[in-house]
């Protein structure tokens, strides 16, 4: 699973550079199955653990809310706006990407 993730990350290195050169605070790529952080631009390991919190609680509750309202529907993207930042969360099958801007 990690090898697949690394492949994907290497292939998208140019995209990652473009995204991080704009006004982002950072990004986190997490592995869904292990619920662990795969890649991040944050230096603070505490921040990584906290973003796991975001993935675990918020993404799964949003997904269940969407399915509850319509069983054929599914969550494609999530944007949490706060006063300081905006978290862009993209859950995929194997991994979840979060960008903070």
């Amino acid at each position: 699973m990690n090898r697949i993730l690394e492949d994907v990350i290497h292939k998208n290195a140019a995209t990652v550079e473009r995204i991080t050169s704009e006004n982002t605070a950072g990004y986190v790529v997490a592995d869904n199955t292990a619920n662990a952080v795969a890649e991040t631009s944050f230096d603070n390991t505490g921040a990584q653990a906290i973003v796991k919190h975001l993935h675990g609680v918020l993404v799964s509750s949003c997904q269940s809310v969407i399915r509850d309202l319509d069983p054929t529907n599914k969550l494609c993207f999530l944007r949490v706006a706060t006063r300081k930042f905006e978290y862009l969360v993209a859950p995929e099958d194997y991994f979840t990407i979060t960008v903070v801007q």
Partner: protein
Amino acid sequence: MSAEVEEMLKRFQALKNVVGIIVIDNDGIPIKTTLDNTLSVHYAATMQTLREKARQVVLDLDGTNEFTALRMRTLYHEVMLCPKDDYFIVVIQKPCE
């Protein structure tokens, strides 16, 4: 004040992509809605729990930060949740591609 609110709702509803607007008070009861009642109540209940969870998550991530909006993009719609002091608004729209 309520005339302005009506007018704003009408304006938003007239936008081509908007499917529905629900204004929900703090007890989880939809006070104004453009969708039918059962659907609104269903949305109100689920969005209420989601709003609480999102508020908790943002507070946990940073105690000084505040949750201002949530946007969920799904296959068929885009659902936007905007909490205010004594109520919150849910707007469902068709995403423009």
